[in-house]
């Protein structure tokens, strides 16, 4: 049955050249938990300039680091990556392969699953090892249910959300990184032409300790100005449910939920958000949740710790003034 068998491989992603992303470090932490005490955690890193990252991967939990430094692997190209990883994982034959539930992981792991005939579980919000192997948990039906899933093939693949694993402090030191062979890179049918980055937010959503999110009831862009002001005052980031993103009141990168970002800040303030399952899927694990909504029956109140029933236009200005006063004390 698809289990760790003490063998965990983490597909590393880079934040920028030579620096592993946060989810990668979290997966190494998770990998250690799944593999211990006798198991081995491997990290696999592909791209260009990736050799520099090997040291950090080793110090954050990887027993062995495999890398392939080649320009054809950067940016991520699904066919070039699959070509390298397929024989590598076929040879490994068992254990679990973890990747972030990111645009890269979501694209890569199902491809590997079908080409290796191995089971894949996407969007995991939990992974744990027990006597029977690994148990993966994931939301289904838009977050209205949580499924516990086991993989029945010897090799299991899983994409995991952020904050499921915990990054380890830099302690471990591993062996020298091992270069992977590039069995001629060759042409790929899929070509990545250009890359466009949106302007980075003042404070990235996933890192923020406070998130102030607005929903459809904000009514327009002006509403989001108020939220931005509140977020700034609290040293946090602005989020949104899907309707404001669809309406263009907030950038796509702000969306929180099952098809947006998953956040778990210490404090999540949901303003004019009703609390759909799809939204809750992205923030229900936050430390404290505060809701402001004019509808006392709104479901969001049932999943919040503190609430105010009222129109945000009347509630928020007074709240903001008082918060300013309190945080400047």
């Amino acid at each position, binding site marked *: 049955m698809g289990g760790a068998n003490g063998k965990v491989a983490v597909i590393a992603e880079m934040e920028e050249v030579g620096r592993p992303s946060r989810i990668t470090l979290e997966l190494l932490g998770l990998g250690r938990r799944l593999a211990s005490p006798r198991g081995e955690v491997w990290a696999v890193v592909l791209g260009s300039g990736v050799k520099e990252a090997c040291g950090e991967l080793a110090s954050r939990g990887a027993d062995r680091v495999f890398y392939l430094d080649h320009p054809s692997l950067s940016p991520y190209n699904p066919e070039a990556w699959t070509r390298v990883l397929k024989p590598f994982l076929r040879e490994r034959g068992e254990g679990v392969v973890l990747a972030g539930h990111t645009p890269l992981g979501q694209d890569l792991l199902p491809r590997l699953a079908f080409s290796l005939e191995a089971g894949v579980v996407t969007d995991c919000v939990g992974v744990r090892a027990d006597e029977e192997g690994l148990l993966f948990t994931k939301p289904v*039906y838009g977050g209205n249910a949580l499924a516990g899933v086991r993989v029945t093939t010897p090799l299991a693949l899983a994409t995991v959300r952020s904050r499921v694993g915990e990054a380890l402090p830099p302690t471990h030191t591993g062996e020298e990184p091992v270069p992977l062979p590039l069995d001629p890179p060759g042409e790929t049918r899929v070509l990545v032409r250009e890359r466009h980055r949106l302007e980075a937010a003042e404070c990235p959503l996933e890192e923020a300790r406070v998130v102030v999110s607005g929903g459809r009831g904000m009514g327009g862009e002006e509403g989001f100005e108020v939220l931005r002001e509140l977020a700034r005052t609290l040293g946090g980031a602005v989020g949104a449910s899907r309707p404001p993103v669809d309406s263009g009141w907030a950038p796509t990168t702000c969306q929180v939920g099952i098809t947006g970002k998953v956040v778990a800040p210490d404090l999540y303030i949901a303003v004019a958000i009703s609390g759909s399952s799809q939204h809750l899927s992205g923030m229900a694990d936050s430390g*404290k949740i505060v809701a402001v909504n004019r509808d006392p029956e709104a479901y969001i109140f049932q999943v919040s710790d503190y609430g*105010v029933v009222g129109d945000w236009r009347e*509630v928020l200005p007074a709240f903001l003034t008082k918060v300013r006063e309190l945080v400047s004390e």
Partner: protein
Amino acid sequence: MGPHIVVLAKMVPDPEGPPSSFEVKTAEKRVVARGIPPVINPFDENALEAAIRIKERLGGTITLLSAGKNLSRAVILKAVASGADASVLLEDDSLDQALLDSRKTAALLAAALRTLDPFDLVLCGRQASDTNAGVVGLGVAELLGLPAVTLAQRVEVSDGKVVVERVLSDGYEVVECPLPALVTVSGEIGDLRYPSLQAIRAAKELPQRVLRPDDLGVDLPPSWVETVSLEPPRRERRCRLVEADSPAEAGEKLALLLREERVI
């Protein structure tokens, strides 16, 4: 001649239905939808919209392909009326959602695609709202040997290739590949247009083929994964509502309460 585009469309219980309409049957490990209508999976509607936009520019034809048990003809009709030319329904009691996983579904759809007129492009949703998987599309591509691009926010066809804007967490990238190809579509592409009543009436005359798995001669492969438990999410908290004489006072009191509780 314009391209032939096949859109893979799955029927699901309306994901925007209230949480109370999704009854989680823990013992049977299945979710029963109550009092909400079936709809086309929203991302598949986005895929259909992408197909219609290509057809508006280049002509060609669109075939809707859906597999399942008891597919609602009204739902299919409305989707087809938005701008497709034909529909193929792969239907059988054995195609119960609870019994199909991504691997079986991909095998069925790949087999069905082999029986259609040659196509240039297959468009599907980035993920189905019930499985929340995002696996079937890539599986179909792998089984048919098609190049695939995921998470499209824009899809254009020209000179025998497809050019896709692919959503990233901090922007997008432009990716292209030769046709025939498969592309999975994300919500950013935009909502499916509404068909006119006239179009719905006219769509009744469009060709519709119903296939059975037996017609395809596929042996469904065994599952790679097994659902061992299904539970409702545990999210409920006890909420302290701030009482006050005016909304402004409530806002002020909320701030004080959060400070008192060391939240801010």
